[in-house]
């Protein structure tokens, strides 16, 4: 069977944004990408879900409107019809919208109301805005963005040229990295780099050694960034104490990136595609948009506020680490994201707390999902012997995703119910951690709500409860709030199972 890739987009939105003449140029560029894919053994088809002829040719009904729900339904219909090995969503959110997931962590102090997400497009579950519904990713998906709010054919051409002209490099080409961290997260980032590259000797800390994207060497092909980020902003930031110096600005990237770079950014809003009109930013490009314009193959990042501990690895750290590990082993970028999602779900589950659900939803890949940064010599050898390794992996990943969908138990927020039976134990933890005056939220992950046999439900045990306690601690001797602790307590009917403390950044 041929390896199939679908480029999915919306003709009306593109025509409105680019004008009829420039839409034809964009359409021709997508055809150019398809032609380049053909030489790589990939059959690529462009589908405009709102164009009757294109939709009919693809075997799906035409979608007259292209709301989030329509686009999700169209992708599902195309997947059911064709079982593509790669799904490329073409365009920024004003062409193919992200699905606005209700922020599962919003009940605490997290100000994001929704999480713009591509995760639903990677799942078989039908359209929904609940993160709890998308816990079984099965599809390889990426988004080749254009510039939000601006029809720029030259930008699209640059990205298509990068993807179509790429030939997989050697693993050694990606062993050197540009790694930068907020100084307060140095331990966490060191662990991440050690896991991916086997060392953290090249890690830059900000502030320290005047480490910024201006001073750092951006030519290495692997970029790992663990800094602060803000909504509608064109920079990332370091941190030491109350000082937050700029560590990277989009302007500093131009002409400095190594061709073929792959980026994983843990930063809050790290992959946000900014419409400059909303940010008052003039003609600036968001960091992710500019990375791609300057020759990066892909950018993995978050749409919203992300989480991770200071001194260990969890949440955003793990998604980025797993993604890079797959890339370095020779996976395509899209498969790397799917594997990272599945691996993170396996690690965070089976009972998923609200922060894990948000982490799953918020990371997306910007770049052509079929592009393989690093060659896989073993695959080439197997292909020569007639083995279809891509189809084999899709089968495996599909089934793994399906198993996760049924075996992972997402939590749901419930009204705070003070624990009577375990009051003493919880009090002990709160006292030990100095969190007696903290704000409490309550979530339940109930395996009984999952579809499973009676025996399986009995074996799964009762509901798991998560209690989060958030506390702002005044700095010693001062009135100003300086430190926040977030305590996550996991309980079953029989008692407290575990707890974790996340410190302020």
């Amino acid at each position, binding site marked *: 069977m041929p390896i199939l890739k679908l480029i999915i987009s919306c003709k009306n939105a593109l025509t409105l944004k680019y004008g009829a003449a420039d839409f034809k140029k964009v359409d021709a560029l997508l055809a150019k990408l398809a032609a380049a894919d053909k030489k790589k053994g990939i059959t690529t088809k462009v589908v405009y879900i709102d164009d009757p002829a294109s939709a009919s040719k693809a075997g799906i009904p035409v979608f007259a409107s292209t709301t989030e729900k329509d686009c999700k339904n169209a992708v599902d219909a195309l997947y059911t019809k064709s079982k593509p090995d790669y799904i490329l969503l073409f365009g920024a959110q004003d062409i193919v919208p992200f699905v606005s997931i209700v922020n599962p962590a919003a009940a*605490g*102090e*997290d*100000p994001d*109301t929704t999480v713009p997400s591509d995760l639903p497009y990677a799942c078989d579950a039908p359209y929904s805005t609940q993160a709890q519904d998308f816990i079984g990713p099965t599809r390889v998906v990426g988004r080749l963005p254009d510039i939000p709010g601006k029809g720029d054919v030259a930008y699209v051409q640059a990205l298509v040229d990068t993807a179509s002209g790429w030939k997989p490099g050697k693993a050694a080409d990606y062993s050197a990295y540009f790694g930068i961290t907020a100084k307060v997260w140095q331990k966490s980032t060191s662990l991440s780099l050690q896991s991916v590259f086997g060392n953290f000797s090249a890690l830059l800390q900000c502030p320290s050694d005047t480490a910024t994207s201006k001073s750092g060497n951006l030519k290495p092909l692997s970029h790992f960034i663990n800094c*602060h*980020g*803000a*909504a*509608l*902003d064109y920079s990332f*930031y370091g*941190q030491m104490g*109350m*000082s*937050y110096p*700029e560590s990277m600005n989009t302007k500093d990237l131009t002409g400095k990136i190594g061709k073929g770079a792959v980026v994983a950014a*843990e*930063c*809050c*809003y790290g992959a946000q595609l900014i*419409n400059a*009109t*909303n*940010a*008052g930013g003039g003609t600036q490009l968001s960091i992710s948009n500019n990375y791609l314009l300057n020759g990066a193959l892909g950018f993995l990042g978050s749409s919203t*506020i*992300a*989480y*991770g501990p200071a001194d260990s690895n969890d949440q*955003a750290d793990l998604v980025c680490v797993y993604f890079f590990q797959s890339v370095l082993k020779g996976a395509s970028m899209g498969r790397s994201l799917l594997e990272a999602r599945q691996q993170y779900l396996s690690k965070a589950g089976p009972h998923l707390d609200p922060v894990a659900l948000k982490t799953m939803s918020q990371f997306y890949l910007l770049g052509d999902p079929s592009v393989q940064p690093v060659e896989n010599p073993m695959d080439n050898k197997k292909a020569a012997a007639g083995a279809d390794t891509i189809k084999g992996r899709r089968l495996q990943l599909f089934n793994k995703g399906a198993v996760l969908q049924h075996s992972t138990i997402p939590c749901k927020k419930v009204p705070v119910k003070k624990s009577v039976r375990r009051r003493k134990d919880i009090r002990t933890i709160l006292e030990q951690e100095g969190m007696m005056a903290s704000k409490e939220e309550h979530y339940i992950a109930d395996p009984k709500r999952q579809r499973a046999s009676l025996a399986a439900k009995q074996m799964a045990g009762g509901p798991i409860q998560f209690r989060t306690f*958030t506390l*702002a601690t005044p700095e010693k001797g001062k009135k*100003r*709030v300086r430190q*926040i*602790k*977030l305590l996550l307590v996991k309980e079953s009917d029989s008692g407290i199972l575990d707890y974790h403390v*996340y410190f*302020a*950044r």
Partner: protein
Amino acid sequence: MANMVELQGKVVLKKFAPGSKSEHDAVFLETDDQSYQLRRLGGNPFDDPALKAMVGKTVKAKGLLNDQLFIAHELKEGEGA
């Protein structure tokens, strides 16, 4: 699409997104009926001394409103206070 609006309110300092990678002491503009995270166009979103100097004061601000984030293009102190 963000709208250019004019807001008046009191500038206060509050913890933003505690426990997350964005956690910091952020400046907010508290109007009669809403609280918005306040930033200056081009200012450091995590540490803007010019904004922090306005904490406790009543200001009139003109800028872009994106959901709960207000990016101020103009800030005037004390007007209408």
